């Protein structure tokens, strides 16, 4: 079973229908969203690129939801670097659906069985079970896909070499799952494996969390992949996702270097000045599209991340393949959402 099946033209046809309906649904059920649409003059989209997008930071300043208060089942928050918090409202249906779709996406590379799982993080992060950090929520969400979980770091965040060795002794000779944030994987797994001769060749690594800290250390995504291969870790999948589109992850394909969009999602790269859609090869702002946000109008979002589409229907899986290249400098990003604040 895969959720990476639709060629681009076919996907856009499906998405245009579903997302146009979602746009109407949110217009009817979220007053602030209806006001934004009215101010933008939007009537109808003839292509996915014409669908009206919201800047992702709008979820920090407006209460955007399309469900009555008494149907709010879960409120997800993400704190940005400035301390502003996005609030994402889920009803029961949306909460269950996001877990299912994330499950289906990840099973594309893991298969239907839960694998023994090495978490490159510390259990201490989950101590306050009422309020997890975004990192904690990510780890917890992913642990559904594993079994016999072992934490690679102790409660102080120090590498627990005995725990890692114990895990590999028990599970290292059959496929196992490794999950962690990119920078932690580099510092606390790759370097430890290299220095201690650990065999990770049966591991399937799923990692996320941005490249900034690694690029500061002059480690590019290609270098990351090459060096991990040096300790036997060749099944490596980076992913990109955000709380504002919870359940949707863009997953790196088996040959590396590109992220792919599941059948229910897509990306568009826009010129940050003209908002025009940019062709493959040109860098711009990433817009992320997903049919999952039914309880809040997050189905078409302009992120503050720079990205580039590498190609369409020409990679491991059908559809667009792309990379995320980092953040747009803050000042420029603020400019674009101010436009929307006025509109709202």
């Amino acid at each position, binding site marked *: 079973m895969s959720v990476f099946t639709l060629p681009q033209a076919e996907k856009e046809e499906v998405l245009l229908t579903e997302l146009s309906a979602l746009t109407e649904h949110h217009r009817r059920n979220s007053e602030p969203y209806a006001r934004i649409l009215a101010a933008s003059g939007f009537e109808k989209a003839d292509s996915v690129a014409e669908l009206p997008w919201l800047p992702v930071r709008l979820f920090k300043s407006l209460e955007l939801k399309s469900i009555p208060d008494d149907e709010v*089942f879960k409120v997800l928050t993400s704190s940005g670097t400035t301390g502003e918090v996005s609030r994402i409202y889920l009803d029961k249906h949306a*909460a*269950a659906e996001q*877990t*299912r779709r994330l*499950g289906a996406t*990840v*099973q594309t590379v*893991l298969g*239907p*069985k*839960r694998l023994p799982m090495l978490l490159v993080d510390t259990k201490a992060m*989950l101590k306050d*079970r009422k309020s997890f950090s975004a990192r904690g929520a990510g780890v*917890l*969400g992913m*642990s*559904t*896909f594993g*079994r016999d*979980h072992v934490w690679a770091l102790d409660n102080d965040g120090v590498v627990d070499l005995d725990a890692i060795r114990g895990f590999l002794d028990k599970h290292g000779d059959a496929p196992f799952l490794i999950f962690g944030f990119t920078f932690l994987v580099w510092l606390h797994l790759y370097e430890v494996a290299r220095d201690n001769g650990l065999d990770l060749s049966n591991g399937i690594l799923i990692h996320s969390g941005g490249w900034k800290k690694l690029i500061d250390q002059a480690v590019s995504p290609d270098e990351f992949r090459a060096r991990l291969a040096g300790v036997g870790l060749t099944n490596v999948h980076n992913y990109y996702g955000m709380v504002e589109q919870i359940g949707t992850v863009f997953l790196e394909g088996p040959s590396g270097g590109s992220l792919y969009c599941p059948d229910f999602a897509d990306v568009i790269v826009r010129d940050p000045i003209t908002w025009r859609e940019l062709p493959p090869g040109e860098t711009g702002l990433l817009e992320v599209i997903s049919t999952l946000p039914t309880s809040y109008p997050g189905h078409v979002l302009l992120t503050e991340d720079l990205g580039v589409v590498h190609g369409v229907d020409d990679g491991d899986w059908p559809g667009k393949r792309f990379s995320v290249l980092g953040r747009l400098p803050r000042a420029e990003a603020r400019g674009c959402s101010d436009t929307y604040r006025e509109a709202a």
Partner: protein
Amino acid sequence: MSTLQQLREAFRTALDLPADAPVDDLQYQDNEKWDSLAHMSLIAALEDEFGVMIDTDDVINLSSFQEAIKILGKYGVDISE
């Protein structure tokens, strides 16, 4: 102990509920003890107790006590008095 009693015990232990707590009508996340962290303990407890390996889709779909009975049935575990 019947398998139904075993299942009730496993729920109470994993969800940290009192020994006499009624569990037959429990729904995921309706009871505040059954959150996503407890869910993983519950799955591990069911696997240990009944000697099965539950697939990812079933972990996701196991959203109530009654659903647990159905899912365990798929793995050949008959839950009864």
